[in-house]
Each structure stands twice: as structure tokens, then as C-alpha cells.
């Protein structure tokens, strides 16, 4: 679950950036910098999610496969 801890922090930072940009208190340079950072964080989050989703669907498929075999034997 180490990856999950990173996701939690990353998404928290991402949400914070979204709030700041929405509030519109920053000057133009700051806004662009925050936006760029946001895009980076977004990619990290997306990668973590896709990775987790893939692994889970593989695990579940594997697991279902094992179950089916057991039924056949009985």
C-alpha cells in the first residue's frame, strides 16, 4: 500500500492547487507555475490509478480461475 500513501498526498496537493487556481488570487506567473505543477501531479495520480486497476483486475481474474478449477474437481 506504499503507492496508496503517495496517491493520498498527491491527490491532496492536486486538490489544493485546484482550489487556489479557482480562487484566482494568484498573479499570472504563479498561476501558470501552479497549473504546470498540477498537470504533473495529475499524471502521477492517473498512473497510480491505472496501475492499481490493472493489477486488481488481473488478481480477480486469477482468483476466479482458481475457483472454477476447484468446482470442476468436486
Amino acid at each position, binding site marked *: 500500500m506504499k503507492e496508496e500513501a503517495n496517491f493520498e498526498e498527491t*491527490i491532496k496537493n492536486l486538490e489544493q*492547487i485546484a482550489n487556489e*487556481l479557482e480562487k484566482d488570487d494568484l498573479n499570472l506567473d504563479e*498561476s501558470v507555475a501552479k497549473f504546470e505543477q498540477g498537470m504533473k501531479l495529475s499524471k502521477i495520480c492517473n498512473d497510480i490509478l491505472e496501475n492499481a486497476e490493472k493489477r486488481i483486475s488481473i488478481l480477480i481474474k486469477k*482468483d476466479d480461475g482458481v*475457483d472454477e478449477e476447484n468446482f470442476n474437481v468436486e
Partner: protein
Amino acid sequence: MQEDGGSLEDLWPFNEEIVARAIFESKLPIISAVGHETDFTIADFVADLRAPTPSAAAELAVSDVEELKLKLLGYNNRLKLALKKKVELMRLRYEKCMASRAFKDPLQRINEQYIRIDMMVKSLQHNIINKYKDRKNEMITLVSKLDSLSPLKTLTRGYCIAQIDGKAVKSINDVKKDEEVDLRFIDGKKKAKIL
């Protein structure tokens, strides 16, 4: 624990104290299937479960295993579901964040500034043109005033300028008898003689 018994004597060992204690101390669960339906021994009471016949005992034991298998399947499904749900929630939270105006429409603020600049340029243009128009109207007014005050305008009303050598004659003392003067009309000059 079973005894395919016939007589009551065959069942007696199962009433022994030592057997009862052994059953009690046993770490393994014990199903007692000693004797017949209606014959009870002490072993029956100490055991974890009593079955009326050996076959019934077998059924009970097997049943437990089946129940466990079902339980395991249940846990398995719960694990799968919990994990799927967890990831779905994470995914939802991420999508919600990315739906923010800040990321969906990052150029919005910049476009707003463009519009603001456009409006200011238009306003500047509008103002400068108005200023120019005002000044022009002022000038037209002044010019027409000037025009009406012009000595040449006076000439159109029937006056003429008496000039000697290009200079205007302002007084009768400036002319002598028989002197020639230039009379300047609006449409030209004519010579005249003082009488």
C-alpha cells in the same frame, strides 16, 4: 468417536472418567457417535457434539467443512469487492478534482484578460474620437465666428476700404482734394478721385 456397538457392555468404556476427561482436554473438536439413538454415555455429554449414529456424525462433520468453504468464498468476495470499491473511490476523487474549472478551462482567466484589454482599447478609441469631434466642432464654431467678424465680410454688406498705396485711409484728414484713392470692394478695386 464412534462405536458400532451391540450391547450396553460394549458402550461402558465410554462412561469411564478417564475417557470423559480425555475428551474434555482434547484440543481437537470431538463428535461422539457412540451407541444407538437412545443410549447415552458420559462421553456423549462431554463431547463437543453428539450424533445419534456414526453416519449422522459423518454428515455433521462434513457439513461443517461445507459451511467453512462457503464462509471462505464469502470472505473472498468481500475482499474483492472492498478492493474494487476502494480503487473506484480513488478514481472518482481524482476525476472530480480534474473536473475543476482550473484544469478543464485553464485559459479562461487569460481570455478574460484579453476581453478586458479589448474593451479598454475600444474605450480609448471611443474617447479619443469623441475628443477629436468636440475639438473639431469647437473649431468650426470659432471659424465661423471669425468669418463673420472678418473685414471682408463687412465688404459684402456694402462697405469698401479706401486705400492709398495699400494702406487703409482712416480719416478725412488723410486725403486731399483731387487725390486718387483705391476703393477696395469685395470683388475688386477701382480708382476714385477725392472731390
